[in-house]
């Protein structure tokens, strides 16, 4: 009768949510791609410069910060804008994406209680959108690298690995935080404050070396710093990150994703009740 093979829904006999949600996401993959496209289109469609904002935004941000802080770190960090922008891009990808995911679940998740779509659709689409922005913004970064004559080495070939690890971590964090945002509305505000503080507590604008030794030792406990280093080292230091850092970030990313996916899928059925 219908064009698709009929399937049977049985609320009492379904795979564990951990698996089921993943299967459903695969089934609805076209929806995720459409949503990613729509977020991008909506953001830039009505602006005069359109997609150029995606390129211009990181450039302007770098120029402003480089003018403000460049002199301070001139000797410690040659080609300061390269250091700054590579760190900034990784930081923005992780934090803006997670903030956006929380907001979408708390306010825009209305569709989830009106019609069945996989609960993780929004979060995955938001992270996908963030990933696209992140990749596009590597273009202005290469522009600055070229403009300043910063050396480019084979270590850049490691970047796809860095990006994948960052994306897995971000997805895990987004799943955890968006679950929290549905149950506690003010977790969005709390997270925003933490992100603001984190920006200054993480060596993004400044080198790790400016911190007193008593503080810099603690930085290995700052996951954001580790992930930023994973992305920044191949670009700025022209070196593949050392094995310890790679192992730590891979483990951290997978653990976060596992925790996020578990928590999110276990609470997913409650979302339609709480949103």
């Amino acid at each position, binding site marked *: 009768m*219908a064009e698709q093979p009929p399937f049977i829904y049985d609320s009492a006999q379904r795979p564990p949510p951990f698996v089921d949600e993943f299967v459903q996401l695969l089934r609805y993959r076209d929806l995720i791609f459409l949503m990613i496209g729509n977020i991008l*289109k909506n953001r830039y469609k009505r602006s005069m410069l359109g997609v150029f904002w995606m390129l211009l935004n990181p450039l302007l941000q770098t120029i402003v910060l480089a003018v403000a802080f460049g002199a301070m770190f001139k000797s410690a960090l040659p080609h300061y804008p390269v250091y700054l922008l590579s760190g900034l891009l990784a930081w923005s990808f992780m934090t803006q994406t997670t903030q956006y995911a929380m907001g979408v679940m708390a306010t825009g998740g209305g*569709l989830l209680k009106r019609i069945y779509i996989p609960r993780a659709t929004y979060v995955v689409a938001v992270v996908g959108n963030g990933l696209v922005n992140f990749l596009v913004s590597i273009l202005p970064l290469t522009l600055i690298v070229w403009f300043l004559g910063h050396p480019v080495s084979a270590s850049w070939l490691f970047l796809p690995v860095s990006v994948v690890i960052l994306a897995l971590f971000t997805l895990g964090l987004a799943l955890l935080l968006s679950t929290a945002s549905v149950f*506690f509305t003010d977790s969005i505000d709390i997270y925003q404050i933490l992100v603001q503080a984190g920006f200054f507590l993480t060596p993004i604008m400044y080198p790790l070396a400016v911190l007193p030794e008593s503080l810099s030792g603690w930085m290995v406990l700052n996951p954001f710093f580790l992930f930023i280093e994973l992305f920044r080292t191949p670009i700025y230091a022209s070196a593949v990150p050392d094995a310890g850092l790679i192992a730590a970030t891979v483990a951290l990313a997978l653990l976060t994703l596992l925790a996020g996916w578990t928590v999110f899928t276990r609470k997913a059925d409650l979302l339609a009740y709480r949103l």
Partner: protein
Amino acid sequence: MIQLDQVTVRFRIPHERIPTFQEYAIRWLQRRGVRYSNFNALNNLSFSVDQGETVGVIGPNGAGKSTLLKVIAQVIRPTQGRVRLRGRVAPLLELGAGFDYEMTGRENVFLNGAVLGFSRRDMARRLDRIVDFSGIGDFIDAPVRTYSSGMVARLGFAVATDVQPEVLIIDEVLAVGDAHFQQKSAARIRKFRQSGSTILVVSHNPASIKALCNRVLWLERGVIRLVGPVEQVMQQYAPDAPSPFSK
């Protein structure tokens, strides 16, 4: 075929304001939890609909009609009990659910199709037929925010009903668009009914229930008040049902 076995849907109604983390932390420190009361929107409901039947669901506001449809459309899972059904469900609960008003009608056909679980390739193949049925015409390439509410509903209806579903859920949307489109959409639903779709209709309009349904389920406070052949139930529910505007 739809089968509900002892289905309960329980909502928690907080007695105080919406818990924020701050509020929650304070309460936890003070060793008093947030107080809730439970509300059963559906209470131990057992009911089944055979393949090809058209069943009306009636009852006052808050009887659990919408919750019943949501449980069947898999939007919420039952707190207790079991829901089983065979085939694809087309929920006409929210026409144009997930429409993005900044996007064009064409883009929204794909988006809405994806929300309903169809692939992009599938939608591309059916686009012309959908646009044709909706009667949107040249507006299909204009942003949906420029549409009238009738046009939005027409496009949503056209997407949702383009492929015949095994189960069709209708919530008070029989009156979509203008008189001409209402005829068209009613004809399509009748065609589905004749060719074996199982249909569930929620409506407050006794006339449309009588016109469409074989059987009626009368819900009140989450339990079945009466279920049976349409004439028999409607006789008791609304014996003469005058229009609210007639004197």
